[in-house]
Protein backbone atom coordinates (compact mmCIF):
# COMPACT_ATOMS: atom_id res chain seq x y z
CA UNK A 1 0.00 0.00 0.00
CA UNK A 2 3.03 2.29 0.32
CA UNK A 3 3.17 2.54 -3.50
CA UNK A 4 -0.40 3.86 -3.41
CA UNK A 5 0.60 6.58 -0.94
CA UNK A 6 3.68 7.61 -2.91
CA UNK A 7 1.77 7.88 -6.21
CA UNK A 8 -1.06 9.73 -4.46
CA UNK A 9 1.41 12.22 -2.95
CA UNK A 10 3.09 12.84 -6.31
CA UNK A 11 -0.28 13.28 -8.02
CA UNK A 12 -1.42 15.58 -5.22
CA UNK A 13 1.64 17.84 -5.45
CA UNK A 14 1.40 17.92 -9.27
CA UNK A 15 -2.28 18.89 -9.09
CA UNK A 16 -1.62 21.64 -6.51
CA UNK A 17 1.28 22.97 -8.61
CA UNK A 18 -1.02 23.07 -11.66
CA UNK A 19 -3.75 24.81 -9.67
CA UNK A 20 -1.33 27.53 -8.56
CA UNK A 21 0.54 28.07 -11.83
CA UNK A 22 -1.98 27.70 -14.68
CA UNK A 23 -2.96 31.15 -15.91
CA UNK A 24 -6.36 30.07 -17.29
CA UNK A 25 -8.94 30.50 -14.51
CA UNK A 26 -11.11 27.48 -15.30
CA UNK A 27 -8.05 25.24 -15.62
CA UNK A 28 -6.60 26.34 -12.28
CA UNK A 29 -9.95 25.90 -10.49
CA UNK A 30 -10.45 22.46 -12.11
CA UNK A 31 -6.97 21.47 -10.93
CA UNK A 32 -7.82 22.84 -7.45
CA UNK A 33 -10.99 20.71 -7.29
CA UNK A 34 -9.12 17.56 -8.41
CA UNK A 35 -6.42 18.35 -5.82
CA UNK A 36 -9.25 18.59 -3.24
CA UNK A 37 -10.42 15.10 -4.21
CA UNK A 38 -6.88 13.69 -3.96
CA UNK A 39 -6.43 15.38 -0.58
CA UNK A 40 -9.66 13.74 0.61
CA UNK A 41 -8.18 10.43 -0.56
CA UNK A 42 -5.05 11.09 1.51
CA UNK A 43 -7.25 11.78 4.55
CA UNK A 44 -8.80 8.35 3.97
CA UNK A 45 -5.32 6.80 3.83
CA UNK A 46 -4.42 8.61 7.06
CA UNK A 47 -7.37 6.83 8.74
CA UNK A 48 -9.39 10.05 9.12
CA UNK A 49 -12.68 9.33 7.26
CA UNK A 50 -14.54 12.17 8.99
CA UNK A 51 -12.00 14.68 7.69
CA UNK A 52 -12.18 13.05 4.23
CA UNK A 53 -15.95 13.56 4.19
CA UNK A 54 -15.63 17.20 5.20
CA UNK A 55 -12.80 17.85 2.74
CA UNK A 56 -14.73 16.29 -0.15
CA UNK A 57 -17.95 18.15 0.69
CA UNK A 58 -16.55 21.55 1.80
CA UNK A 59 -13.04 21.64 0.28
CA UNK A 60 -13.74 20.33 -3.23
CA UNK A 61 -17.46 21.10 -3.52
CA UNK A 62 -18.33 24.44 -1.92
CA UNK A 63 -14.91 26.09 -2.22
CA UNK A 64 -14.69 25.12 -5.91
CA UNK A 65 -18.10 26.69 -6.55
CA UNK A 66 -17.06 29.85 -4.66
CA UNK A 67 -13.90 30.21 -6.74
CA UNK A 68 -15.86 29.70 -9.96
CA UNK A 69 -18.35 32.41 -8.98
CA UNK A 70 -15.60 34.92 -8.21
CA UNK A 71 -13.57 34.00 -11.30
CA UNK A 72 -16.67 34.54 -13.41
CA UNK A 73 -16.88 38.12 -12.16
CA UNK A 74 -13.22 39.11 -11.75
CA UNK A 75 -12.06 37.85 -15.15
CA UNK A 76 -8.71 36.63 -16.46
CA UNK A 77 -5.38 37.06 -14.69
CA UNK A 78 -3.67 40.33 -15.59
CA UNK A 79 -0.07 41.34 -14.91
CA UNK A 80 2.96 39.14 -14.53
CA UNK A 81 4.50 37.69 -11.36
CA UNK A 82 5.82 40.12 -8.76
CA UNK A 83 9.56 39.88 -9.40
CA UNK A 84 11.31 38.63 -12.49
CA UNK A 85 12.58 35.10 -13.08
CA UNK A 86 15.40 35.52 -10.53
CA UNK A 87 13.01 36.61 -7.78
CA UNK A 88 10.84 33.58 -8.52
CA UNK A 89 13.84 31.23 -8.24
CA UNK A 90 14.94 32.89 -5.00
CA UNK A 91 11.43 32.51 -3.60
CA UNK A 92 11.39 28.87 -4.72
CA UNK A 93 14.68 28.18 -2.90
CA UNK A 94 13.46 29.92 0.23
CA UNK A 95 10.14 28.06 0.19
CA UNK A 96 11.94 24.77 -0.49
CA UNK A 97 14.26 25.34 2.46
CA UNK A 98 11.31 26.19 4.71
CA UNK A 99 9.38 23.07 3.71
CA UNK A 100 12.49 20.89 4.22
CA UNK A 101 12.94 22.38 7.70
CA UNK A 102 9.23 21.78 8.32
CA UNK A 103 9.54 18.14 7.23
CA UNK A 104 12.56 17.64 9.52
CA UNK A 105 10.75 19.29 12.45
CA UNK A 106 7.59 17.21 12.07
CA UNK A 107 9.08 13.89 10.92
CA UNK A 108 11.67 13.88 13.67
CA UNK A 109 9.23 13.90 16.54
CA UNK A 110 8.23 10.82 18.48
CA UNK A 111 6.75 12.68 21.40
CA UNK A 112 4.19 11.29 23.89
CA UNK A 113 0.61 10.82 22.62
CA UNK A 114 -1.67 11.21 25.66
CA UNK A 115 -4.90 11.94 23.79
CA UNK A 116 -6.00 8.52 22.42
CA UNK A 117 -6.04 6.71 25.79
CA UNK A 118 -7.83 9.71 27.36
CA UNK A 119 -10.47 9.76 24.60
CA UNK A 120 -10.89 5.98 24.79
CA UNK A 121 -11.28 6.11 28.58
CA UNK A 122 -13.92 8.87 28.47
CA UNK A 123 -15.68 7.75 25.27
CA UNK A 124 -18.21 5.78 27.29
CA UNK A 125 -19.19 8.89 29.28
CA UNK A 126 -19.42 11.10 26.19
CA UNK A 127 -22.65 9.55 24.94
CA UNK A 128 -21.43 8.79 21.39
CA UNK A 129 -19.16 6.04 20.09
CA UNK A 130 -17.55 7.91 17.21
CA UNK A 131 -14.42 9.37 18.91
CA UNK A 132 -14.19 12.38 16.56
CA UNK A 133 -17.80 13.37 17.24
CA UNK A 134 -17.14 12.86 20.97
CA UNK A 135 -14.16 15.27 20.80
CA UNK A 136 -16.00 17.79 18.60
CA UNK A 137 -19.33 17.87 20.41
CA UNK A 138 -18.42 17.02 24.00
CA UNK A 139 -14.78 17.10 25.11
CA UNK A 140 -13.84 20.22 23.09
CA UNK A 141 -17.36 21.51 22.37
CA UNK A 142 -16.13 25.08 23.07
CA UNK A 143 -13.85 24.92 19.99
CA UNK A 144 -16.79 23.82 17.85
CA UNK A 145 -19.02 26.57 19.26
CA UNK A 146 -16.42 29.23 18.40
CA UNK A 147 -16.00 27.69 14.95
CA UNK A 148 -19.74 28.13 14.35
CA UNK A 149 -19.23 31.73 15.48
CA UNK A 150 -16.56 32.08 12.76
CA UNK A 151 -19.10 30.89 10.19
CA UNK A 152 -21.71 33.33 11.53
CA UNK A 153 -19.29 36.30 11.42
CA UNK A 154 -18.25 35.34 7.87
CA UNK A 155 -21.95 35.24 6.94
CA UNK A 156 -22.55 38.69 8.48
CA UNK A 157 -19.48 40.01 6.62
CA UNK A 158 -20.51 38.62 3.22
CA UNK A 159 -24.09 39.90 3.69
CA UNK A 160 -22.65 43.34 4.62
CA UNK A 161 -20.29 43.42 1.61
CA UNK A 162 -23.11 42.23 -0.64
CA UNK A 163 -21.40 40.85 -3.75
CA UNK A 164 -23.63 41.19 -6.82
CA UNK A 165 -25.88 38.12 -7.28
CA UNK A 166 -24.50 35.27 -9.40
CA UNK A 167 -26.12 34.66 -12.80
CA UNK A 168 -25.46 31.09 -14.03
CA UNK A 169 -25.60 30.47 -17.78
CA UNK A 170 -28.88 29.13 -19.22
CA UNK A 171 -28.37 25.34 -19.27
CA UNK A 172 -31.33 24.07 -21.19
CA UNK A 173 -34.15 21.78 -20.16
CA UNK A 174 -32.18 18.65 -19.16
CA UNK A 175 -31.16 20.37 -15.92
CA UNK A 176 -34.62 20.03 -14.35
CA UNK A 177 -34.75 16.20 -14.22
CA UNK A 178 -31.08 16.22 -13.14
CA UNK A 179 -31.80 18.54 -10.22
CA UNK A 180 -34.95 16.59 -9.40
CA UNK A 181 -32.78 13.50 -8.83
CA UNK A 182 -29.62 15.05 -7.33
CA UNK A 183 -31.31 17.29 -4.73
CA UNK A 184 -33.42 14.58 -3.03
CA UNK A 185 -30.38 12.26 -3.06
CA UNK A 186 -28.27 14.99 -1.45
CA UNK A 187 -30.91 15.45 1.26
CA UNK A 188 -31.02 11.67 1.81
CA UNK A 189 -27.22 11.45 2.06
CA UNK A 190 -27.14 14.44 4.44
CA UNK A 191 -29.72 12.84 6.72
CA UNK A 192 -27.82 9.55 6.63
CA UNK A 193 -24.53 11.28 7.53
CA UNK A 194 -26.15 13.26 10.34
CA UNK A 195 -27.77 10.22 11.95
CA UNK A 196 -24.76 7.96 11.78
CA UNK A 197 -22.42 10.76 12.97
CA UNK A 198 -22.75 9.43 16.51
CA UNK A 199 -21.46 5.97 15.68
CA UNK A 200 -19.53 6.14 12.37
CA UNK A 201 -17.85 8.84 10.25
CA UNK A 202 -20.32 11.66 9.65
CA UNK A 203 -21.76 14.53 11.64
CA UNK A 204 -23.09 18.06 11.38
CA UNK A 205 -20.41 19.63 9.20
CA UNK A 206 -20.35 16.90 6.57
CA UNK A 207 -24.16 16.65 6.49
CA UNK A 208 -24.51 20.46 6.33
CA UNK A 209 -22.04 20.71 3.47
CA UNK A 210 -23.75 17.96 1.44
CA UNK A 211 -27.11 19.66 2.02
CA UNK A 212 -25.56 22.95 0.87
CA UNK A 213 -24.28 21.11 -2.22
CA UNK A 214 -27.84 20.08 -3.00
CA UNK A 215 -29.09 23.65 -2.60
CA UNK A 216 -26.26 24.91 -4.83
CA UNK A 217 -27.38 22.47 -7.51
CA UNK A 218 -30.81 24.11 -7.38
CA UNK A 219 -29.35 27.63 -7.58
CA UNK A 220 -27.03 26.69 -10.45
CA UNK A 221 -29.88 25.09 -12.33
CA UNK A 222 -31.60 28.47 -12.10
CA UNK A 223 -34.58 27.06 -10.24
CA UNK A 224 -33.23 27.94 -6.79
CA UNK A 225 -35.62 29.78 -4.46
CA UNK A 226 -34.81 33.45 -5.06
CA UNK A 227 -36.60 36.36 -3.46
CA UNK A 228 -36.05 38.67 -0.50
CA UNK A 229 -38.09 36.65 2.02
CA UNK A 230 -36.36 33.34 1.23
CA UNK A 231 -32.91 34.90 1.63
CA UNK A 232 -33.97 36.59 4.87
CA UNK A 233 -35.22 33.24 6.19
CA UNK A 234 -31.95 31.57 5.19
CA UNK A 235 -29.98 34.35 6.96
CA UNK A 236 -31.98 33.84 10.16
CA UNK A 237 -31.50 30.06 9.90
CA UNK A 238 -27.76 30.55 9.30
CA UNK A 239 -27.41 32.71 12.40
CA UNK A 240 -29.73 30.50 14.48
CA UNK A 241 -27.12 27.72 14.67
CA UNK A 242 -24.84 29.81 16.89
CA UNK A 243 -27.76 31.00 19.05
CA UNK A 244 -28.98 27.41 19.58
CA UNK A 245 -25.48 26.16 20.50
CA UNK A 246 -24.86 29.02 22.99
CA UNK A 247 -28.37 28.54 24.39
CA UNK A 248 -27.74 24.82 24.83
CA UNK A 249 -24.41 25.55 26.55
CA UNK A 250 -26.04 27.93 29.02
CA UNK A 251 -29.00 25.57 29.56
CA UNK A 252 -26.54 22.74 30.25
CA UNK A 253 -24.83 24.94 32.84
CA UNK A 254 -28.24 25.68 34.38
CA UNK A 255 -28.97 21.96 34.69
CA UNK A 256 -25.58 20.56 35.67
CA UNK A 257 -23.63 23.60 36.92
CA UNK A 258 -20.95 23.03 34.21
CA UNK A 259 -20.79 25.26 31.09
CA UNK A 260 -21.32 22.94 28.08
CA UNK A 261 -21.67 20.01 30.52
CA UNK A 262 -24.57 17.94 29.12
CA UNK A 263 -26.77 16.27 31.79
CA UNK A 264 -25.62 12.71 32.60
CA UNK A 265 -27.45 10.00 30.64
CA UNK A 266 -28.88 12.41 28.07
CA UNK A 267 -25.63 13.37 26.33
CA UNK A 268 -26.51 11.59 23.08
CA UNK A 269 -29.91 13.29 22.84
CA UNK A 270 -28.35 16.72 23.43
CA UNK A 271 -25.57 16.08 20.91
CA UNK A 272 -27.94 14.85 18.21
CA UNK A 273 -30.25 17.84 18.78
CA UNK A 274 -27.35 20.31 18.57
CA UNK A 275 -25.95 18.56 15.49
CA UNK A 276 -29.32 18.62 13.71
CA UNK A 277 -29.71 22.38 14.21
CA UNK A 278 -26.06 22.90 13.20
CA UNK A 279 -26.60 20.91 10.00
CA UNK A 280 -29.45 23.15 8.88
CA UNK A 281 -27.64 26.34 9.88
CA UNK A 282 -24.36 25.30 8.19
CA UNK A 283 -26.25 24.39 5.00
CA UNK A 284 -28.03 27.78 5.01
CA UNK A 285 -24.78 29.63 5.77
CA UNK A 286 -22.75 27.90 3.03
CA UNK A 287 -25.57 28.57 0.53
CA UNK A 288 -25.69 32.27 1.43
CA UNK A 289 -21.89 32.52 1.30
CA UNK A 290 -22.24 31.40 -2.33
CA UNK A 291 -25.29 33.35 -3.48
CA UNK A 292 -24.79 36.45 -1.30
CA UNK A 293 -27.73 38.63 -0.24
CA UNK A 294 -30.35 39.34 -2.92
CA UNK A 295 -30.11 43.14 -3.08
CA UNK A 296 -29.57 45.79 -5.70
CA UNK A 297 -26.01 45.26 -6.97
CA UNK A 298 -23.65 47.96 -5.74
CA UNK A 299 -22.59 50.81 -7.95
Amino acid at each position, binding site marked *: MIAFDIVLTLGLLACAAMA*LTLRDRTASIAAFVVAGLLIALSWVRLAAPDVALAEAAIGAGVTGALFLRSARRIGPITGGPVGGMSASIAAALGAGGLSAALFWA*FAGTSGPVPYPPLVAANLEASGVTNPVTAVLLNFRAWDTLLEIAVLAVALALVVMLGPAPVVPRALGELVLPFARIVVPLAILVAGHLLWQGATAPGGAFQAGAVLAGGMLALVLAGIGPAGERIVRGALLLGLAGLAVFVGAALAAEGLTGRFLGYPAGAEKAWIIAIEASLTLSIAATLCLLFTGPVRRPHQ
Partner: protein
Amino acid sequence: MTTDLVYHVAGAGLTGLALWRLATCRDALRRIMALNVLAIGIAMVLLASGFDAATGRTDPVPQAFALTGIVVLVSVTAALLALAERIGGRSND
Protein backbone atom coordinates in the same frame (compact mmCIF):
# COMPACT_ATOMS: atom_id res chain seq x y z
CA MET B 1 9.18 4.57 4.89
CA THR B 2 5.90 4.25 6.71
CA THR B 3 2.68 5.97 5.61
CA ASP B 4 2.97 9.01 7.85
CA LEU B 5 6.45 9.89 6.53
CA VAL B 6 5.04 9.99 2.99
CA TYR B 7 2.27 12.34 4.08
CA HIS B 8 4.74 14.49 6.06
CA VAL B 9 6.52 14.98 2.72
CA ALA B 10 3.20 15.78 1.03
CA GLY B 11 2.22 18.32 3.72
CA ALA B 12 5.63 20.00 3.71
CA GLY B 13 5.57 20.05 -0.11
CA LEU B 14 2.16 21.70 -0.21
CA THR B 15 3.26 24.28 2.37
CA GLY B 16 6.41 25.09 0.40
CA LEU B 17 4.44 25.33 -2.86
CA ALA B 18 1.91 27.69 -1.26
CA LEU B 19 4.59 29.91 0.30
CA TRP B 20 6.38 30.16 -3.06
CA ARG B 21 3.15 31.14 -4.82
CA LEU B 22 2.28 33.69 -2.11
CA ALA B 23 5.70 35.29 -2.55
CA THR B 24 5.49 35.56 -6.32
CA CYS B 25 1.94 36.41 -7.36
CA ARG B 26 -0.16 39.53 -7.25
CA ASP B 27 -3.54 38.28 -8.45
CA ALA B 28 -6.13 38.21 -5.62
CA LEU B 29 -7.75 34.91 -6.55
CA ARG B 30 -4.47 33.02 -6.81
CA ARG B 31 -3.34 34.41 -3.46
CA ILE B 32 -6.56 33.10 -1.90
CA MET B 33 -6.01 29.71 -3.57
CA ALA B 34 -2.41 29.67 -2.28
CA LEU B 35 -3.67 30.37 1.27
CA ASN B 36 -6.08 27.43 0.88
CA VAL B 37 -3.24 25.13 -0.22
CA LEU B 38 -1.14 26.37 2.73
CA ALA B 39 -3.93 25.58 5.22
CA ILE B 40 -4.40 22.09 3.69
CA GLY B 41 -0.65 21.48 3.90
CA ILE B 42 -0.64 22.37 7.60
CA ALA B 43 -3.66 20.10 8.26
CA MET B 44 -1.87 17.25 6.45
CA VAL B 45 1.29 17.68 8.51
CA LEU B 46 -0.85 17.81 11.67
CA LEU B 47 -2.76 14.62 10.86
CA ALA B 48 0.36 12.79 9.69
CA SER B 49 1.97 13.40 13.08
CA GLY B 50 -1.23 12.12 14.74
CA PHE B 51 -1.18 8.87 12.69
CA ASP B 52 0.00 5.82 14.64
CA ALA B 53 1.63 3.47 12.12
CA ALA B 54 1.52 0.51 14.54
CA THR B 55 -2.25 0.46 15.07
CA GLY B 56 -3.13 2.09 11.75
CA ARG B 57 -5.41 4.53 13.61
CA THR B 58 -5.20 8.33 13.94
CA ASP B 59 -5.56 10.26 17.20
CA PRO B 60 -9.13 11.72 17.12
CA VAL B 61 -8.15 15.10 18.61
CA PRO B 62 -6.05 16.29 15.61
CA GLN B 63 -8.90 15.03 13.40
CA ALA B 64 -11.16 17.46 15.26
CA PHE B 65 -8.54 20.20 14.73
CA ALA B 66 -8.41 19.44 11.00
CA LEU B 67 -12.22 19.53 10.76
CA THR B 68 -12.34 22.86 12.58
CA GLY B 69 -9.55 24.12 10.30
CA ILE B 70 -11.54 23.15 7.18
CA VAL B 71 -14.70 24.96 8.33
CA VAL B 72 -12.73 28.07 9.38
CA LEU B 73 -10.91 27.99 6.04
CA VAL B 74 -14.11 27.95 3.98
CA SER B 75 -15.57 30.89 5.93
CA VAL B 76 -12.42 33.02 5.60
CA THR B 77 -12.15 32.07 1.90
CA ALA B 78 -15.75 33.16 1.30
CA ALA B 79 -15.05 36.50 3.03
CA LEU B 80 -11.82 37.01 1.05
CA LEU B 81 -13.58 36.24 -2.25
CA ALA B 82 -16.43 38.65 -1.45
CA LEU B 83 -13.83 41.37 -0.73
CA ALA B 84 -11.85 40.51 -3.87
CA GLU B 85 -14.98 40.87 -5.98
CA ARG B 86 -15.77 44.25 -4.48
CA ILE B 87 -12.26 45.57 -5.29
CA GLY B 88 -12.24 43.92 -8.71
CA GLY B 89 -9.48 41.49 -7.98
CA ARG B 90 -6.49 43.84 -8.42
CA SER B 91 -4.92 43.83 -4.93
CA ASN B 92 -1.66 45.71 -5.47
CA ASP B 93 -0.35 45.38 -1.94
